[in-house]
């Protein structure tokens, strides 16, 4: 097995958030509330309380929808003065 980079792209984040992982109760309300769908729940990792918690991927707009719907007050929301770009490399695995 070897890997080769197939393509490069950038994703713009106009905002970002902090997540207080340890107070999260894993309800998933933030996941569906996020308009650009840039939050996803961990599949295996759990927090201090034993719950899966959300992780942020590039593309946040700083809209604060996650903060509005989180019953456990886990989020702080920020807007960047200048949008932040994340370079994404799409990697294809090629079998030898």
């Amino acid at each position, binding site marked *: 097995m070897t890997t080769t980079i197939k393509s490069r792209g950038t994703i713009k984040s106009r905002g970002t958030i902090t997540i207080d992982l340890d107070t999260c*109760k894993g*309800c998933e309300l933030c996941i569906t509330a996020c308009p650009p769908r840039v939050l996803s729940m961990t599949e295996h990792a759990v927090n201090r309380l034993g*719950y899966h918690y959300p992780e942020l991927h590039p593309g946040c707009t700083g809209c604060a929808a996650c903060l509005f719907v989180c019953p456990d007050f886990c989020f702080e929301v920020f807007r960047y003065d200048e949008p932040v770009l994340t370079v994404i490399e799409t990697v294809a695995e090629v079998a030898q």
Partner: protein
Amino acid sequence: MSAAKQLPVLDTSVAPSAARKVGDLKPDLLLTQEHNMCPGCGEPLVLRSFLEALSELDVAQRSIGILGVGCYTSFGMTMDVDLVQALHGRAPSIATGVKRMRPDSIVFTLQGDGDMVNEGLQEVLHTAARGENVTCILLNNGVFGETGGHMTATTVLGQRTKNSLEGRDAAYHGYPILIGDLLARLEGAAYVARGSVHNAGAVARTKKMLKRAFEIQRDGGGFTFVEVLTMCPTGWFIPTGEGPDYMHSTLGEVHVMGELKADGRIKSTEELHEENAKRQQEIEARLAAGGLEEDS
């Protein structure tokens, strides 16, 4: 969703530099963000909304809350507001006494549907009819959440609860009481609104209703009432993630969101439905454009 999952995970443990904060972790009037509510419960969202409204109006120092009996009662331990604990259902009567003795304070009750509409229906009705200058806040989830999820007077027809497993049946259980609509008809009620916390837009709108109610009370306008539909996934026996949609399509269809009575005018249910459809479109457009924050 699955597309996002392929993308890298960003660091969310520290606040970024060169960014301005647009949303706080918790309201200033809450001593800690930790609480005992179940995962996916809607009640903390209302807590945030009214505590932020009190701060923004700069009346927190002279606010006195009267707590009913329900899950939300445990917020009494962490809320930095003067509080009185009422017996089940009696909060509006205590609020009446507090307000009459201390007319300069901002007095509000926090009650659930079981507390307000079952245990203490006459208290809230008479308080509204007398036009007492207090604000009653109702957290309506259609079940007695704290004691295991059985039916209340606001449970909608067809809703499954612990003692209506096949759904509420009008012939056997009777019809739900639409408390907001009932109170709006009373001459003494100055402002009656029904919010909901099923999505971010609804939470923002609910906060505005609560703020408006407190403003009216501050200006001596008379009895104000804000009902908020909240999720109780535990009492409804559904997964937490399905709570908002379930609530919006069952309770939300009957207890319709909107300002039921404002500036002396009572709105019909049809009018409210129409308004809601229009607003939802606007909110979705604004979210897509990047934020709710500009909301005035």
